[in-house]
């Protein structure tokens, strides 16, 4: 196990810099999630940590050792790929034991370690199968098992759930969280899915256009977003941003209200709007409401409600939860 220090890390392809001055400390045993939209640099950053991409500026310290020039093997990290990257000609057992066989470990030791990892991932019955004979979820577990067997200092996971269907995704999400608790190894997880980030991370690193927007615990990011971008990215459904009359009224360039922070009912401060779409999820009801001078708003109501398309509705943002942003997208202190 080891902690990581990313000091002024940058990455450029020729003249084009895609990651700028990344500074980040990751504690030993921490579960950190890099999240951001496509092209923000999160996978590139992960690959730089893995040693698959050259670091063009700054320092990467793994366990206190400068690791910029070290090979992936010397860094003692393991990585789980989005595409699983299992060796198709090898059996599950051979895939999982490949790194140990390269180290010329005794066969009995390899078999023992593979069996332990396979048992912990419920892969025992599949050890003699080839990857092509497994389902997507089983393949992903083999990829995780391959990483476990090496007992690495740091686990890197690059969007490992994105090829799985919704049910399997949530199941595997829980398995990875349990695995982290059990192994207490440093894990860095890349995803563009903020639900994965919120549910798994000790800390989330939000990246945008090659910069770190904010680092914090899921609730810190949810309650106190450092930028308008983070406010919009964290939370599902995403935060409503209102400009114009209603923002001016409270002295902000942009007023941010999360969908769950509206009260429904007629009052003096309420905004009148028309329901244009209703999504009934059972535990929640999501309304899409067109409000003059505020635009289209998303409203999340707890439980089941009987609003229908075309209904007139009155919405009041809960003052204690609203977010105010200035012209630069920075929060305005209350």
């Amino acid at each position, binding site marked *: 196990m080891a902690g990581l220090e990313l000091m002024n890390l940058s990455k450029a392809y020729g003249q084009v810099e895609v990651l700028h001055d990344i500074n980040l400390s990751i504690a030993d045993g921490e579960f950190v999630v890099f999240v951001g939209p496509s092209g923000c640099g999160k996978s590139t950053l992960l690959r730089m940590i893995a040693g698959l991409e050259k670091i063009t500026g700054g320092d990467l310290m793994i366990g206190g050792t400068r690791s910029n020039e070290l090979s*992936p*093997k010397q860094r003692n990290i393991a990585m789980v790929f989005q595409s699983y990257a299992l060796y198709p*000609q090898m059996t599950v057992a051979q895939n999982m034991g*490949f790194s140990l066989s*390269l180290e010329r470990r005794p066969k009995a030791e390899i078999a023992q370690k593979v069996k332990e990892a396979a048992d912990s991932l419920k892969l025992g019955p599949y050890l003699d199968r080839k990857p092509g004979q497994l389902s997507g979820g089983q393949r992903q577990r083999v990829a995780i098992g391959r990483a476990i067997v090496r007992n690495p200092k740091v686990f890197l996971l690059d969007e490992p759930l994105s090829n799985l269907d919704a049910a399997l995704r949530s199941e595997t999400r829980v398995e990875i969280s349990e695995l982290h608790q059990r192994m207490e190894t440093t894990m860095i997880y890349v995803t563009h899915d903020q639900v994965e980030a919120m549910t798994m991370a000790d800390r989330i690193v939000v990246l945008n256009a090659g910069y770190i927007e904010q680092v914090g615990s899921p609730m810190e990011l949810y309650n106190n977003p450092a930028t308008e971008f983070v406010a919009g990215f964290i939370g599902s459904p995403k935060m409503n941003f209102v400009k114009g009359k209603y923002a001016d009224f409270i002295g902000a360039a942009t007023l941010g209200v999360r969908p769950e922070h509206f009260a429904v009912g007629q009052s003096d401060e309420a905004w009148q709007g028309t329901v244009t779409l209703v999504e009934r999820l059972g535990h929640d009801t999501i309304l899409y409401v067109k409000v003059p001078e505020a635009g289209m708003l998303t409203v999340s109501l707890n439980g089941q409600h009987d609003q229908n398309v075309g209904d007139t509705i009155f919405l009041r943002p809960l003052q204690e939860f609203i977010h105010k942003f200035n012209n630069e997208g920075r929060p305005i202190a209350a």
Partner: protein
Amino acid sequence: MYGRWILLFVLGVIAVLMASPLILTVFTSLKPTTELVNPAWYPPLNVTFEHYVRVWTEGGFSRYFFNTLLISVVDAAVMVVIASLAAYAMVFIDFRGKLALQVLFLIGLMIPVTAIVLPLFQIVRSFGLLNTHFGVIVADLALAVSVFVFMFTSYFVGVPKALHEAARIDGATEFQIYRRVIMPIAMPAVVTTALLEFLWSWNDLLLRLLLLTQDEMRTLSVGLLNFQGTMTRDVTGLSSGTVIMAIPVVILFLFFQRHFVRGMTAGAVK
């Protein structure tokens, strides 16, 4: 309905045209000399293998056969190794001068052998490799390597990069990745390369005629010329020699046909 019959007819005519020289050659090789007065398409009435025995022993074909086999097998094996290693570097390793090297290989594809036969002869002679099988093998490899690097490159490009990266993370060296991860999944390209290079080497006449002037070093294709003088022609010897030369190729193709076609089309579509 008629379209299908017309198609079958056309295919049948083409098949007869393609097969008839081979059939006539086999007929001639099995005929006693006394039956040679009959038209060529007459099957042998009294089948004899005397011409095969004569060609194999007196004609020196046993030696030619061994020489050809040696050169072709070494050609095929070495070509698989060097072409796949070069293609592996082209696809999976970043290095300075990669583009220039790719252009060089591309140029190698464009130059016909006949255009460089004389300089090639001089180079082989200057290295003292005339009349050696090693000289022929080196020349064969140099002339065909571009084609097979191109073929392996097309195949490797279709291999997910993540496999290479996963192996690096697992601690494999480039050579271990090549040998244990990439090559086992490139078997169609390996089989195609080995077969094609074997066939080219087996059938080649020009380089062997030029570089192997001593009789004991010669190959089957050159040996066949012995049966054809300026004024005379040993038809039965020529036919038997041709059949001897064709048999290994036909057997190989029958065995590996499926792999061969798969390898040829690999990389054409994702």
